[in-house]
């Protein structure tokens, strides 16, 4: 009995050590980024110490006072806000009849939505690029914001699952009270699924804060650069030599980009973590 207990105890300690080890592996890149931002280029390229020998603020100084940093933040926030607003409105609208109403073609529509979820956006980005070029939307945020107002399949899918979990009796009662379908949607479903809206809103914001692919294709000039693009362009060659990457500058800009998701996790993990959990479980 005692030996079994000791064995169990040893197992617990082993697992704890394993957890610490994994935590070090998973978190070390973030520490590396934060420390790198305070190094100068020569130190960064010659030493791999975690704690900088000569702490310098030149990288942050450049970002805050000598670059268009605030413009990039504005663009990124506009992109996040526009797409999130769009997808919340349109996706919840589309999800409503799919969760609540019976009509011919419902199954077809639903399977088309699930089907389009499977198409990676990158496969269609070249024809879309030409299309948006023709209507003059390139080099702006419109190619990303406008489509979000026409429902993202994945978010429709999530909204549908959430709406189905709301008791049907509630809308029936509202209908008897004389509510139209639209009334039911706004007066019953929307208030009851506030947390769902927050969840999908948070997930969408995190996605667009981090999104690189679409801005790389659609944005050319400085005016509409997002932070992710700026990381690959503005903050990359600040050493003065157009052919030498200024790593510390990238690290400084990256650490600034990591902060918002980090704070979101620390102060709003309810929305982030719970949201992600539920987003996957309702399959």
């Amino acid at each position, binding site marked *: 009995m005692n030996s079994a207990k000791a064995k169990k105890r040893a197992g617990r300690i082993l697992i704890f050590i394993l957890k610490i080890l994994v935590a070090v592996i998973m978190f070390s890149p973030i520490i590396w980024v934060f420390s790198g931002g305070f190094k100068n280029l020569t130190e960064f390229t010659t030493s791999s110490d975690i704690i900088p020998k000569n702490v310098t603020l030149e990288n942050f100084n450049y970002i805050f006072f000598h670059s268009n940093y605030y413009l990039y933040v504005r663009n990124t926030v506009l992109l996040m806000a526009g797409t999130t607003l769009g997808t919340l409105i349109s996706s919840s609208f589309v999800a409503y009849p799919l969760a609540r109403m019976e009509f011919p073609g419902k199954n077809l529509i639903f399977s088309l939505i699930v089907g389009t979820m499977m198409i990676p956006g990158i496969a269609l980005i070249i024809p879309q690029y030409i299309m948006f070029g023709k209507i003059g939307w390139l080099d702006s945020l419109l190619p990303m914001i406008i489509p979000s107002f*026409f429902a993202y399949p994945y978010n429709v899918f999530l909204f549908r699952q959430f709406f189905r979990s709301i008791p049907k009796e509630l809308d029936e009662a509202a209908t008897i009270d004389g509510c139209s379908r639209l009334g039911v949607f706004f007066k019953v479903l929307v208030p009851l699924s506030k947390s769902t809206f927050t969840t999908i809103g948070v997930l969408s914001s995190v996605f667009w804060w981090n999104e690189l692919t679409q801005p790389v294709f659609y944005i050319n000039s400085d005016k509409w650069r997002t932070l992710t693009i700026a990381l690959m362009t503005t903050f990359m060659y600040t050493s003065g030599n157009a052919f030498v990457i200024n790593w510390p500058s990238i690290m400084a800009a990256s650490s600034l980009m990591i902060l918002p998701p980090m704070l979101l996790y620390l102060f709003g993990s309810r929305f982030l973590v719970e949201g992600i959990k539920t987003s996957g479980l309702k399959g």
Partner: protein
Amino acid sequence: MKNEKRKPINKKKLTNHLTAYAFCAPWFIGFICFTLFPIVFMFAVSLTNRKLNGISNFVGFANYVNMVQSPTFWNSIKVTLFFTVVMMVVTTIWAVILAMLLNYKQKLNGIFQFCYFLPSVIPTVALAYTFRTIFGKEAGLLNAIISQLTAKNVMVNWLYDKRTIYLAVFFITLFTYNTGQMMLIFRSGLNDVPRELYEACDIDGASPFRKFFGITLPMISPIVLFNAVMGCISALNGSFALLYPLTGESGDPNGMTQVLSLLIYKEAFSNMKVGYACALSVVLFLIACGFGIGIFAVSKKLVYYEN
């Protein structure tokens, strides 16, 4: 007489249907404009020699003929399939491991979850640059750590050596959003497995491995499927955001990481061969469809559903 009675019911039904369609209208417009039309348009452009500046002529299937004769293309297909499948498997396994570690109730689990999850919400482009320096040869963090541990001067060129490149790249995929998302989903999934099943197993004296493969895995198989689907899409879709800043449009070294999306970008924007890039996009589209059909076919056979 009868007609008069039935009419209002029909009308109500019709109204109901029309309302439903009206609600679906945003998706329908979006589907036509941003999915269906681009697909058709993509096929059309792939039959021309369109350049980036818009000049184009009909060339029939010349792009496809050139494509199948190009070793770069076949290499890229190989890399895409390999990358997608391996990334899907590696990230899923890692997510299950993380979730099981976190579900083992101990002190400080909150901090552990923070450490495990945070890397997945940082921008992939930042992740890529970070790992370019961690995996650097001269002053990289990893070489420094290994040198410290082994007391030898280790200089591995992780991202340029063909023996280590895949090791390095798939290691980096453990830090992507997809992995963190799966970890959280698996955590809830594992919590939902009924305790009684394990207790029955304990009485039989089953080993932890048998418990995992006998109970845990079958019980969470629907979630594994869902995650596999999402993982597959994100591997096809997200590989660009990771690999473009990491190994460049040519997929160094020696094209070993040149997935189709990188090749599409390179042909369209560095070489300005938009028509050819569309032909490549058609192939990527078909591959995605193939993966989708494949996963659902497999899932019908293997996945355990409660109902």
